[in-house]
């Protein structure tokens, strides 16, 4: 029989993670995206990151909107919770879910259309509230699912497969995130799993809103000459500024590092993000400098990647709103709904 389904095969001697799970336990349904789609690489990197972090798939929540990227929640972590929501409304569904149960690990999956056009307001407010989630923005500059119209992230002057060049400036999700208060901002490329997997791990461990803008080329509609989101263009202008590695709390930090080259940032769980600065004099803890760097790179068309900004000190939405730590479904009904008398007393207190 011929088949295009990826069989679930465990090699002999294949390593298991701390939960005793194998790589295949983190996989999902076979992708139906076009062969060569960058999103599939992002899916593979997410699978690997969750496996390596030994996150129980049943403790993860995948939320997405509409689009090629939003379809990918089906292609990994089969045992996780998930919601494919309304176009551009993923951030509010995720926010609500986190309010109901903050003990799970939240992953938002979206694309440039879902996030920067119809869902721009939603995304900006989730960042502003510092909602504790990892938000993956799979960015290919086109609406792939509707046959390749330019999206809001298409660069000015970028050429479509057919027709006239793009005449509107691009919305840069990294610049936007810097301006509205996100506390973990990275950019990467679907073709660079060495950078992307550790970045995803760091983003999952960061407490607060983590945005990773991933250049993820559309092989069908935006991988031609003149496109600024093609594989060829990305490889040519790719520039790594800062490399982030997540070191779990249990691991000893083995390598001694020179101050200035490697910068450790301690996370809330006791783990550490080790930042390897590939550009000297760049400090990813400095929001203004990050903004400057991103703006400067626009002039040179350089695609600056890595963990571009991090602030581990800001409180997240949960903390700011003094929310309940226990999942709502574990709280006894009598406590959730103390009754009309208690409500009356509360209202009385406001009079």
């Amino acid at each position: 029989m011929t088949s295009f389904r990826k069989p679930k095969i465990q090699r002999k001697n294949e390593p298991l993670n701390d939960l005793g799970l194998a790589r295949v336990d983190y996989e999902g349904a076979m992708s139906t995206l076009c062969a060569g789609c960058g999103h599939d690489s992002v899916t593979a990197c997410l699978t690997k990151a969750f496996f390596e972090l030994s996150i129980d798939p049943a403790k993860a929540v995948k939320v997405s909107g509409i689009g090629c990227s939003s379809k990918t929640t089906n292609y990994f972590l089969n045992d996780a919770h998930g919601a494919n929501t309304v176009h551009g409304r993923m951030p509010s569904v995720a926010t609500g879910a986190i309010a109901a149960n903050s003990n799970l690990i939240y992953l938002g999956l979206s694309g440039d259309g879902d996030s920067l056009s119809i869902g721009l307001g939603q995304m900006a407010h989730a960042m502003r509230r510092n909602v504790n989630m990892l938000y993956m923005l799979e960015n290919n500059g086109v609406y792939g699912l509707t046959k390749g119209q330019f999206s809001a992230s298409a660069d000015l002057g970028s050429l479509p497969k057919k027709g006239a060049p793009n005449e509107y400036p691009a919305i840069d999700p990294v610049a936007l995130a810097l301006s509205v208060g996100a506390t973990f901002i990275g950019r990467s490329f679907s073709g660079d799993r060495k950078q992307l997997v550790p970045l995803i791990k760091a983003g999952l461990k960061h407490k607060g809103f983590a945005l990773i803008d991933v250049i993820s080329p559309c092989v069908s509609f935006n991988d031609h000459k003149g496109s600024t989101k093609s594989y060829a263009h990305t490889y040519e202008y790719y520039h790594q500024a800062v490399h982030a590695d997540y070191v779990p709390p249990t691991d000893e930090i083995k390598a001694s590092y020179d101050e200035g080259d490697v910068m450790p940032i301690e996370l809330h769980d006791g783990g550490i993000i080790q930042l390897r600065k590939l550009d000297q004099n760049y400090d990813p803890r400095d929001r203004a400098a990050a903004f400057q760097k991103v703006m400067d790179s626009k002039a040179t068309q350089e695609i600056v990647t890595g963990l571009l900004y991090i602030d581990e000190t800001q409180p997240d939405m949960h903390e700011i709103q003094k929310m309940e730590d226990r999942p709502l479904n574990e709280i006894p009904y009598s406590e959730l709904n103390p009754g009309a008398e208690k409500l009356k007393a509360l209202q009385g207190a406001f009079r």
Partner: protein
Amino acid sequence: MKPTDTSDPDYFHKVVDCQWACPAHTPVPAYIRLIAQGRYSEAYLLNRESNVFPGILGRVCDRPCEPACRRTRVDEEPVAICRLKRVAADHRGDITDQLPKKPENTNGKRIALIGAGPASFTVANDLAPMGYECTIFEKLDKPGGLMRSNIPAFRLPEDVLMEELDYILNMGVDLKLGSPVASMQALLKEDWDAVFVGTGAPKGKDLEIPGRQDAANIHIGIDWLESVAFEHTKAIGKQVLIIGVGNTAMDCCRTSLRLGASSVKVMARKPREFFKASDWELEDAEEENVEIIVNHSPKAFVHENGKLTGMVFEQIEYDLNLAGAITGQRVTADVMIPCDDVILAIGQENAFPWIEEDAGIEFDKWDVPVIDKVTFESTKRGVFFGGDAAFGPENIIWAVEHGHQAAISIHNHCEGRVLTERTPDEMALKSAKMGMMEWRYSNAYDDAPRRKMRHVELVERFKKLDTEVELGFSAEQIATEVERCLNCDVHTVFEAPLCTECDACIDVCPVECLAITPVAENEDALRGALSASENGNGQSLYVSSELPLSGRVMIKDENICLHCGLCAERCPTAAWDMQEGILQIHYADDQAGSPKA
């Protein structure tokens, strides 16, 4: 590190583990595909090209292919290759008109073949249709050599043996039975253009310990099996001890049970992991309630009133190191085990009492003839050796390969060419792609476990000496077993200039055998890029030329690839393709012309 040269025919050949491990290089996945399509006759004929005796080997081959099978890297057991070979033989139609024919005219060259075993028959198979006049001399009055005399009929029925030997005899081969060659000198004086010695390893080893001289009822295994095969021996005592745990020992113990023995013990000097017998032969013997006793070393035969009553063994304790090697041993006790008969199955060697010292054929210090490993020529021009006679005991499939190679040499010799000028193997590749998600082979991974051969009931099988134990595969077993084959001969072929480095192949690979990585100095550095490199089984690391966009290279661990074709399916630019590799082996009738010596 330099890019891999896949134009070397050996590169892709080696990827097909079973074919590479087979001495005769039978194209296993190709014939399994034919079986899957119900094309049994074609599967049989494809087998026959390389291994000559598919029906025989489908039962009793030593199966070097199976331990090599790629399937074992993800599954408990290999594909039942040998059993499927028998399927092709069992279900074939009448293929006689598709076999090489007796030529209308001979070429006048006369070849003497000594010993009617698999080696001589293979030489005759290759040369007779070309016009050579082949004469086989056999000392016994039935042909087959060891296949007849040492392999019991309950494993290899006589009609199966004779049918395949007759195919070759019908090519115009002259078989002289009951005609031992008593003198090499005399033979050489006759008018032969070439002589081939395929007399096997007919001398069973003896055990010189106290009490050996005094008794009947102590038998040399291969002589005893021969005497059973030719119906000179029809009974054995109730209690039988077999000394040795090779495959001959397994045949001896199982034959004893059919001749009246009620208690058969196989006595092994070492622990089980050191046994020489194939696992399946051990299993089959144990299924018949043969007892295998380890760590007993023979010390003496015991007689009472001139009758064998038992044997004394030293019980031995071994020290093993972590690698499992024996580092020390000591005797802990002497044990007496009563018996009526003892069969010695502790090895065999080739012996040539009929070759005179001054015949011009050199022997080394172990009395083994000095034979060229490529041409199979002895130190005397025009005299060739093959099978167990050449390098000592091996197995049938090695004898077949020796026969093919000797046939090429004999042809070159008769044509006056240099013997070493042999046409090398060639590898032809053709794409297996038929369309989107459509391949010319069954690329889906089927996780079914190996099918188990059905056997005749124990009571039934002991009634007659020649009741074949194995029943062959049922239709359902065939249908499942063929799908277990991974089609390793459908190769992943990579065109670096087409790659856009989208990583789709890497992401989809179910065993993570691909990576794109910066160029490195050596293989170890490159392997570091693979998430799990399982360098083993002698398989290579494929390294592409530099990729156009980033200058990195694509690498692939050939060891764990399952040939599922998903890399090629997901590749947007067809940089990866699945291509069927067809190894062309040139036999004697297909040698390119070469200048006269």
